[in-house]
């Protein structure tokens, strides 16, 4: 900007105004990104930094006061057998939910994709999405009552059809309690998996199906050689996100079983909650949270690379 052509404002206010507008013009990126960066700093970077710092503090008497001990909480975590038990339960829970919701999502998406009339298909899709709109804690409470030993509808149905002679306490048995929370979690994730997989199905060119038919492939062979390979990227995306959410799940197991019976369904998020919120051991809870975040980030990183590879293979 050349000074020759600049009209110099006469008042002080005018000069300030001009300086501000010139600054905004010359640093437009800063002006546009600034607010977003600041909010990111406040709501993300600061809490994460605080978490790191907090995980290095040994909490003293009931959360009042702390001393700096960078590895103490991590050492305690690794040595605690209940931590490893929570890890094992988290893996069972997350992979169980992942497997059930992805399989159901695939089956439902394939069924939806075969509905020829567009309006009917859209109606079904919307209906399936409805369960997504249910808050997770409501899902948990609903499933808790459905599987309630005395009043639950599941026991009633099973007794009515003659599969059970007397009430069974689903949530009092460690194995069935785990199965119930996994099913509840999967139920809430099926819509997401379905939508992503359905979008993947609809992006497969009709020509590929025609080519496979002319090549002589049967329906099953077409599924194996056309549908599945094309579906892989969307399957991976849906799978990663489903697993990541299930790995960090809190609302559903907490509202269904609260981690019980005993600690049979105490996944890491509930374990963290117990130590941090109930026992005020913030340092230890922070260390376990770091573990949870770390594992999630590593798995996500690997997965994203795999997905990008898959996508470039299909698209190139």
């Amino acid at each position, binding site marked *: 900007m050349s000074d020759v052509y600049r009209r110099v404002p006469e008042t002080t206010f005018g000069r300030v105004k001009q300086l501000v507008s010139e600054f905004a013009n010359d640093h437009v990126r800063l002006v546009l990104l600034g607010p977003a960066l600041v909010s990111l700093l406040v709501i993300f970077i600061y809490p994460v930094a605080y978490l790191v710092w907090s995980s290095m503090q040994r909490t003293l008497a009931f959360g009042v006061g702390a001393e700096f001990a960078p590895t103490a909480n991590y050492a305690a975590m690794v040595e605690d057998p209940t931590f490893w038990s929570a890890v094992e339960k988290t893996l069972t829970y997350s992979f169980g939910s992942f497997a059930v919701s992805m399989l159901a999502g695939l089956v439902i998406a394939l069924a939806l994709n075969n509905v020829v009339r567009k309006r009917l298909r859209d109606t079904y899709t919307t209906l399936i999405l409805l369960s997504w709109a249910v808050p997770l804690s409501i899902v948990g409470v609903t499933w808790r009552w459905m599987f309630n030993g005395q009043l639950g509808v599941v026991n009633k149905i099973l007794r009515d059809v003659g599969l059970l002679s007397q009430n069974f306490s689903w949530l009092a048995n460690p194995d069935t309690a785990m199965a119930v929370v996994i099913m509840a979690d999967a139920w809430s994730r099926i819509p997401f998996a379905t939508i992503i997989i359905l979008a993947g199905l609809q992006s497969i060119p009709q020509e590929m199906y025609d080519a496979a038919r*002319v090549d*002589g492939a049967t329906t099953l062979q077409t599924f194996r050689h056309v549908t599945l390979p094309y579906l892989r990227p969307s399957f991976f995306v849906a799978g990663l996100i489903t697993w990541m959410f299930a790995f960090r799940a809190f609302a559903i197991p907490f509202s269904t079983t609260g981690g019980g019976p005993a600690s049979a369904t105490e996944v890491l998020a509930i374990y963290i909650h117990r130590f941090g919120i109930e026992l005020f051991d913030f340092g230890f809870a922070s260390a376990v949270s770091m573990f949870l975040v770390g594992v999630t980030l590593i798995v996500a990183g690997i997965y994203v690379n795999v997905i990008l590879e898959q996508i470039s293979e299909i*698209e190139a």
Partner: protein
Amino acid sequence: MSDTTPQTTLDESADVDDRDVSLRLEDVTKTFEDGGGEVVAVDSVSMDIRDGEFVVLVGPSGCGKTTTLRMIAGLEDPTEGRVVIHGEDVLGQEPRERNVAMVFQNYALYPHKTVRENLAFPLAIRKYPKEERASRVQEVAELLDIAELLDRRPGDLSGGQQQRVALGRAIIRDPEVFLFDEPLSNLDAKLRIEMRTELNKLHARVGKTSVYVTHDQEEAMTLSDRVAVMNDGKLQQIAPPQTVYERPANLFVEGEAVRATRAVLQTLGERLQAGDATDLVFGVRPEDVTDTTVVDESFPPETTFDAYVTVVEPIGANKDLTLAPSESAPEDEEFTVRVDANSTAQPGDTVTFAVDMSKAHLFDRATGENLTL
């Protein structure tokens, strides 16, 4: 257009006996439901295609040519009529039972399989032994000059290479009939012409019955033994390319399908036909018109006309002149002629032109039928 079946009068091979016919369509009709209404995509198309013949279906988009091809492949079932391959009515048979191979516009290669696996796929599906698969893949790869690409994936290949692989996947099964659905339309102009020549060579070597769909008239003319011109779901004419060019069955074939600019010269039509000339359309190809001022020759007056020159476009060996009946004539009465390069006509001139009457045609205005055949 005309309800008569032009191919019976113009198809010089109409008297072939049954044994020579590789593919026969009998009154094949296809209608689609379209939101309550019915759309006739293919309207009672009949044709006999002989063993080893290369027939090109040509016409504007939506004329039913692709639907016809898909019915031959078995990807669509005709609403009415029969498809006969080697004497066998294949109606209701799946594509895999028909022994046809198809090459698609977007190649339709399996993206996650290597070129080798793509080529071998139809054989693997049919449970050919491993050794035979390998030897056939090698054979086809050499034939198509893609041997060095065998371990690559389709994503790493150029469009032309992908199309070769798609061709290879069709050839490898040694099918009775090859079907091509606009296979060259995704290639750039230069590659398209190269592949066209290659297809010609390939057909000469493989010699199988082929049905080829395109909207490109040049492709139709250069590749085919016979051209089948379609419009509005109906077969307009099926004949060798030169016949289609020189003796078009109707206005559509002459005007649209072979991309010859029609010179509609009402005055000449009137002179030729003493009767009611408004029922007739006079047609002559641009190159069958001469600029009389630069030719030392006298023309009978009934073959000449005067026209106003609006545009002159030299194209090397010739000049394209855009003419109008008079200076004030509306633009839609303009037409193009192709005269010798030594023509001195300039925009704004009124020049006397002569028509080669032996190559001119008269068409019925109502039905479009060629009356001079």
